[in-house]
């Protein structure tokens, strides 16, 4: 052990040890020379005699080093320096390999960052396996959100939870003192922070007492980052008031640094107890009809998941019986899911797309790997003279192999470092793309240590796979013939290109399918025109806003009138629940059909003001639009869409029919409008009923504004108008319908963007491979080209010679790639919209792109060959 340490010290202080050794040996030799001189030899003879008696100065130095330190490690450092030098000497090779690695591993790391953050990470708590998420099976669907009374009953009646938390996370308008801005906010039960074992960074955290009595404790906790960014980390932030949608809350503490909470994919800035919820939501907390909370729990130590599920199932009827009516719990059977990964905001929905992307990105890495292997093979070919000299000078084949592997590892590590930069940029961009237009939640993922480990391993594996064979081959260079030992290197290089082309075809086809599908989604007829339309959510602000009497509609009328007068505005109207906003209102509409039978049709409900149809360009097919005459007090009116008309009164004229309206009164159907996509462009036509906004004033609504000028300017003016004309309201969000639509199809955009990126990368790498191969072939065959040209071949013939080489490779790659692409496309099927997985147009497009690229990649070096001067070519060796 003592010696081990001494050897390490010697390694670190190598120079001093070397000097010491040299000095000692020199002194030793001097003593010997003295002796020899004393025996009568001349100075020169004495010197030689001393050296002879010594028996090999350099060897003994090596022995000294051997004993002194770890020679292999010393050599390793030496070889590493050698590798770095050697790479600096060929900058273009190094640049190309670094770039293909930076992108190959970079995009890989970016996708793994998502996979890790969304699918793999577990809650940072003790025994995350014991954390569960509560669900309930209802008649038609599985529910994940529950009412507050249901949360209480679950706690009281099941006895399986060591602790239980309830929370709701939605982006709100939060004013930290510098004006309102959008921030992730959560209502949490009093058990929330203790559930995660959190200790406050400052002040205290929300506890059961804060959450006990509704409205009694208007407090909040802010995140560490919010404290740093919004208050500069000032302890005086404590007890300051912030405003959430106008509701004042007192800061009682700061959550610990890095605290995440129940949802690993999101980052809250503010937490408030559920006891203040009724001031911000549209109902009392005790309302069992309002489902708005997610519930997670920790199982008691002795209880298994199966046991807990059995208990929950047995307790379900009692829970329902204990809930005050009206409740939204009809026949619900409660059960538990694994909650170790935290709350499921995106995990389930992104699981399959991420798997596809991870697969695709692995193909990209394989292409990059093949590219690297090819470059290394070519480089080894170019360096065979160097290897031969090294071997002749006595370097062992083993050490040469090690030197070359070190070069590869050095490339891989440098490439890996660049890959991190690429990965961070791509991740950042992806999240921006994904979150754009999402008004109520933001995906937040950052790479962590396991991502770092992943990309490091990916780097080393790449280096190993790509570098081992070329290095091994080089180490077996035949000294006499200066040729690498193995024949058939050309075959290997062509094989690698073939693999690259095959994989590139798969990637191109996938990219083509997803891009095609996205194009369809974007151009699909929504039933209204989203071009240049702003959607501005305007909500009542301040405490108790939902509990006070309906606010005076004149304020909203005034807002609309002023907006319409703006010169950049073409048309504007109110609606409640805007299209594509992510919010919808659904109600059972009772229909009396021709035979007098009553039945319920579940229809989406939109409140729309006069001018709504015109603003959104929803076609009026029959009857009339809402007009200025439809006011509070006049007979209630409604519009239905085609789908509802066809379901309710097939073959009859819907105009004049009566359906239930507000306040148990009936409404007259005054017109029929075209079908619209309400929440999502993908959805099938839904029955929709439109009621008059003016006749059913609610607390705010969504302004739909069709602009003819600068939309940003209109957005600014709308905010100003609301501030002056309707001070009891505030604009919570202004977005264009196009951005909202993009937000709704963010998954499709993500898939299309990434698959295109991967397709482009894979193809670029494959084409670079073809280019390199043909260029190499041109160099090697210069003499042959010279001979051909001198016996009458024309430039076109020479060009064709090399184009044919590339064409054959591409054709073979396509032949192998197409079946593979068609096979793999099946996994993408369920994410495609209006595109089949064997879409001929996409097959043709990807093949044509590959073929054209392959020819272009060969054309550049081929043209160089065609320009060869035959006389000079014959002279070259």
């Amino acid at each position, binding site marked *: 052990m*003592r*010696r081990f340490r*001494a*050897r390490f010290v*010697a390694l670190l202080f190598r120079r001093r040890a070397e000097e010491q*050794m040299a000095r*000692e*040996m020199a*002194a*030793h030799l*001097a*003593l*010997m020379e*003295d002796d020899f001189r004393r025996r009568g030899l001349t100075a020169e003879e004495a010197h030689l005699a001393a050296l002879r*008696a*010594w*028996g*090999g*100065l350099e*060897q*003994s*130095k090596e*022995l*000294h080093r*051997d*004993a*002194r330190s770890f020679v292999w490690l010393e050599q390793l450092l030496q070889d590493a320096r050698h590798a770095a030098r050697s790479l600096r000497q060929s900058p273009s090779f190094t640049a190309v390999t670094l770039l293909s690695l930076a992108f190959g591993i970079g995009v890989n790391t970016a996708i793994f960052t998502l996979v890790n953050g969304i699918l793999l990470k577990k809650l940072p708590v003790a025994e995350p396996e014991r954390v569960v998420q509560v669900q309930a099976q209802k008649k038609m669907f599985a529910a994940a959100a529950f009412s507050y009374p249901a949360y209480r009953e679950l706690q009281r009646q099941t006895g399986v939870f060591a602790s239980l938390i309830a929370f709701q996370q939605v982006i709100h308008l939060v004013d930290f003192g510098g004006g309102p801005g959008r921030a992730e906010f959560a209502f949490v039960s009093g058990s929330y922070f203790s559930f995660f074992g959190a200790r406050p960074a400052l002040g205290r955290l929300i506890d059961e007492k804060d959450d006990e009595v509704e409205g009694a404790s208007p407090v909040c906790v802010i995140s560490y980052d919010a404290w740093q960014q919004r208050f500069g980390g000032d302890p005086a932030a404590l007890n300051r008031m912030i405003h959430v949608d106008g509701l004042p809350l007192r800061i009682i503490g700061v959550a610990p640094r890095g605290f995440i909470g129940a949802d690993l994919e999101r980052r809250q800035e503010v937490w408030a107890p559920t006891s203040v919820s009724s001031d911000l939501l549209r109902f009392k907390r005790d309302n069992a009809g309002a489902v708005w909370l997610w519930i997670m729990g920790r199982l008691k130590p002795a209880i298994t998941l199966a046991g807990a599920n059995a208990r929950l199932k047995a307790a379900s009827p009692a829970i329902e019986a204990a809930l005050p009516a009206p409740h939204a719990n009809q026949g619900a059977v409660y059960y538990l899911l694994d909650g170790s990964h935290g709350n499921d905001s995106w995990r389930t929905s992104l699981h399959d797309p991420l798997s596809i992307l991870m697969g695709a990105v692995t193909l990209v890495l394989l292409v990059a790997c093949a590219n690297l292997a090819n470059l290394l093979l070519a480089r080894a070919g170019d360096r065979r003279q160097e290897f031969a000299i090294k071997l002749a000078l006595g370097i062992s084949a083993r050490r040469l192999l090690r030197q070359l592997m070190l070069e590869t590892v050095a490339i891989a590590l440098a490439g890996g470092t660049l890959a991190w930069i690429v990965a961070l940029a791509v991740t950042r961009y992806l999240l921006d793309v994904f979150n754009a237009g999402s008004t109520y939640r933001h995906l937040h993922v950052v790479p962590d240590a396991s991502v770092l480990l992943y990309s490091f391993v990916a780097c080393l594996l790449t280096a190993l796979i790509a570098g081992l064979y070329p290095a091994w081959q080089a180490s077996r260079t035949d000294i006499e013939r200066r040729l690498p030992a193995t024949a058939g290197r050309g075959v290997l290089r062509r094989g690698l290109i073939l693999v690259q082309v095959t994989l590139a075809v798969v990637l191109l086809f996938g990219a083509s399918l997803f891009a095609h599908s996205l194009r369809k989604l974007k151009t699909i007829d929504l039933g209204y025109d989203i071009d240049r339309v702003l959607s501005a959510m305007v909500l009542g602000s301040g405490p108790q806003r939902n509990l006070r009497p309906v606010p005076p509609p004149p304020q909203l009328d005034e807002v609309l009138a002023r907006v319409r007068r703006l010169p950049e505005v073409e048309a504007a109207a109110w609606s409640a629940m805007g299209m594509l906003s992510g919010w919808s209102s659904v109600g059972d509409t009772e229909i009396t059909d021709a035979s007098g039978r009553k039945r319920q049709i579940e229809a989406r409900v939109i409140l729309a003001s006069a001018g709504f149809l015109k603003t959104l360009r929803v076609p009026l097919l029959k009857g009339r639009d809402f007009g200025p005459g439809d006011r509070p007090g006049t007979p209630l009116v409604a519009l239905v869409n085609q789908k509802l008309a066809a379901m309710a009164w097939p073959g009859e004229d819907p105009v004049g029919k009566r359906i239930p309206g507000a306040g148990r009164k009936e409404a007259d159907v005054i017109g029929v409008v075209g079908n619209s996509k309400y929440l999502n462009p993908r959805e099938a036509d839904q029955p929709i009923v439109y009621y008059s906004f003016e006749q059913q004033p609610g607390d705010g609504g969504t302004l739909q504004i069709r602009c003819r000028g600068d939309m940003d300017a209109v957005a600014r003016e709308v905010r100003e108008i609301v501030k002056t004309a309707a001070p009891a309201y505030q604009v919570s969000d202004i977005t264009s319908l196009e951005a909202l639509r993009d937000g709704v199809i963010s998954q499709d955009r993500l898939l299309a963007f990434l698959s295109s990126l991967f397709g482009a990368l894979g193809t670029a790498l494959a084409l670079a491979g073809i280019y390199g191969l043909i260029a190499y072939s041109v160099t090697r065959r210069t003499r042959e080209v010279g001979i051909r040209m001198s016996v009458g071949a024309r430039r076109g013939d020479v060009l064709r010679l090399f184009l044919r080489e590339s064409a054959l490779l591409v054709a073979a790659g396509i032949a192998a790639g197409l079946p593979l692409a068609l096979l793999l496309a099946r996994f993408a099927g369920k994410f495609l919209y209006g595109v089949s997985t064997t879409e001929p147009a996409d097959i043709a497009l990807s093949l044509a792109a590959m073929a054209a690229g392959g020819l272009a990649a060969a054309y550049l070096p081929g043209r160089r060959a065609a320009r060869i001067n035959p006389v000079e070519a014959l002279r070259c060796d």
Partner: protein
Amino acid sequence: MPSEDPKPRLQVLPGTLDLMVLRTLAAMGPQHAYAIATRLEQVSEALLSLNQGTLYPALVRLEQQGWIRGSWGKTENNREARFYALTRAGRKALGEETARWRRLAGLMEKLLAEDV
């Protein structure tokens, strides 16, 4: 290759050089490498084939184990040299190693003394 030397020189048995060095230092007090080598040759009556350079790995090993300690000094001819001295640990190790070697040598002797 038949040797013409009537008294063939011995190769140092692996593992024995360390003991030889320790023993020499114990007998003669602090010495430099050349003196150690010369002494070994003398004692062996030139039987031992010892290149001066091969002494060094043993010296490095012993010093790293803390059994000897080297320090720069002057010879009687005022030449500089590195003198190695036995440490306390080295003295203890010498005792153990000597005992071990005697056991081993005794065993070999007994084995070889048996009639074949």
